């Protein structure tokens, strides 16, 4: 009650939108750190697509510990695995697989989900019922179980895993879109826009969408971290990326046999997944703060 009274009187000399958003975002250092790490991973993913690394199996370089270990060498920064492959370059190669496919998966779910949500929110009654109930069905099945089912139907593989995860993520986007669009449609400024002669599509685009973009952005970051974990899990189970693809989840599966004698082979891919997901969460936190701050007005 008290804070609303103060903050509702904003001054005319407010910072430009982007500046004030950055100020809010960067006020928490973890958010900036998250953003930084994500950028690095993104750049590494892109660059590793173009760099051809020579990573051959070699019995002579089996299970070399990371360079900081007394038995490690500087040639293999993070050591080698059971088949003598350099772990660091494998992680780099795996980045576009784990991170990249997750990104594509989320993008697919976002576009289809928002599309379905908009159609359902607008046409109401039967269409909405059909969409909501099918989303409920997808939602009712635990995400990993559903992904496994889809992959079992489509056949194992990284792309199919990506598709499965996209289906799993779909209900969240549809629901967010439907609930926020319906909420927006009841607002007085949408009525005013109708009286201003706006066509339904114009209302959706100009009046409704800008206010729905914020919660959707948040949903996307959450979906991304879920996607990464799910795709890695599918890879671990052998249903996603198949050996010898250096997808991080698949690397975890391969490392199981040598876990006890060479813990770095399992720890490092696990850390990679952990760091990526944490960065996304921190970044999402920062975005959340911007959205909450803007919503207070």
């Amino acid at each position, binding site marked *: 009650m008290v804070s609303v009274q103060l903050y*509702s*009187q*904003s*001054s*005319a000399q*407010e910072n430009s939108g982007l500046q004030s958003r950055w100020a809010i975002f960067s006020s928490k250092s973890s958010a900036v750190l998250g953003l930084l790490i994500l950028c690095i991973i993104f750049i590494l993913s892109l660059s590793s697509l173009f760099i051809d690394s020579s990573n051959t199996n070699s019995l002579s370089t089996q299970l070399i510990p990371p360079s900081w270990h007394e038995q490690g060498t500087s040639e293999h920064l993070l050591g080698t695995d059971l088949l003598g492959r350099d772990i660091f370059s494998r992680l780099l190669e795996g980045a576009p697989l784990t991170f990249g496919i997750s990104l594509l998966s989320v993008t697919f779910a976002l576009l289809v989900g928002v599309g379905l949500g908009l159609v359902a929110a607008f046409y109401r009654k039967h269409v909405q019922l059909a969409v909501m109930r099918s989303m409920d069905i997808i939602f009712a099945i635990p995400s990993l179980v559903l992904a496994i089912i889809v992959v079992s139907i489509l056949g194992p593989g990284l792309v199919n895993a990506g598709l499965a995860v996209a289906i799993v993520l779909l209900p969240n986007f549809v629901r967010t879109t439907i609930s926020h669009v319906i909420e927006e449609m009841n*607002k*007085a*400024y949408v*009525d*005013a*826009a*109708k*009286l*201003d*002669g*706006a*066509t*339904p599509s*114009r209302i959706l685009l*100009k*009046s409704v969408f*800008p*206010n729905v973009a914020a919660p959707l952005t948040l949903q996307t970051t959450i979906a991304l971290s879920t996607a990464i974990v799910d795709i890695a899990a599918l890879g671990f189970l052998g249903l996603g990326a198949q050996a010898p693809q250096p997808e991080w989840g698949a690397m975890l599966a391969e490392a199981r046999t040598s876990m006890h004698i060479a813990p770095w082979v399992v720890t490092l891919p696990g850390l990679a997944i952990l760091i990526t997901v944490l960065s996304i969460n921190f970044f999402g936190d920062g975005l959340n703060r911007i959205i909450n701050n803007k919503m207070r*007005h």
Partner: protein
Amino acid sequence: MTKRATIKALSLTKEYLNSANLFGKSECFTALEDVSFTLTQGESLSILGEAGSGKSTLAKILVGAEHATSGVLEIDDKDVSKVKSNKHQNRNRRVRMVYQNTMGSLNPSLTIGEILSEPLINMTKLTKSEREERLFNVLELVGLKSDHSTRLPHTFSAGERQRIAIARALILDPVCIIADEPLSVLETSAQSQIVNLMLDLQKELNLSYIMISYNLDVVEHMCDKIMVLCRGRVVEYGATQQVLRNPKHPYTKSLLSRTQSPINRKLETNESEMKGCIYCDRCMDVNEHCHQQKPEQVLVDGCLVSCHQYSETNKKATN
């Protein structure tokens, strides 16, 4: 030169058909019944009524958001009652609306320029530069500056936001503006500013106003006529001074003295069964006749009143 009637409403009725309930009966809810009034250029009408009395429905019909079930509506000498008003192109651009909630009626993600250009883009064929010119003209009319057009709504005070809402109504050059409690969310110093703005605009542009407000001092100062609605029917309609100083209808009397306990139409189920006067269940001066027959509208001291106390037959009976 006699003043033309800007708005002529004759027996407007609006019925909503509720979808069938569990027992298969679909009920008819009469939001408005037999509402008639006229408004000439430069005149202001106040609609007095509680929540649920039908004043919002009437406003929606006048701006074209809803379509009356029966009756005739002429705006600026054009009969708009036959037009299918759910087509977005046929919105009554001659009658525009200013809402109560200044913050809620302006899209928080759009700049003032975008909000004000919307009606121009949709309903006129002006070019971009013509639109911009009109935008700046209208901002000036309401006392704002042209460089305000790049700012977002929340950066303005409530009084300024109400000016923006008025600008949005003015931008299509209407003959009438409907203002729904335009002052209630404003602080004291802003209220009188907006009143002055509205009065100036009325003089300058020969605008008519329909004010929905409970603030009787404001109504007395700004409006020429008052129409009192009860349960969707007009119970009293006449000059402001007459209605305020010398109310005839029992409902008007209790409303003005603030002793009226709220009528909640949503909870009441007996309305459709009332054959007589719609106020007979709450009226202090009720008699048997009131339950049986609907009162006619009678002219008493220059006001139209719907009450058996003043009807011809009653007069004859008492004489």
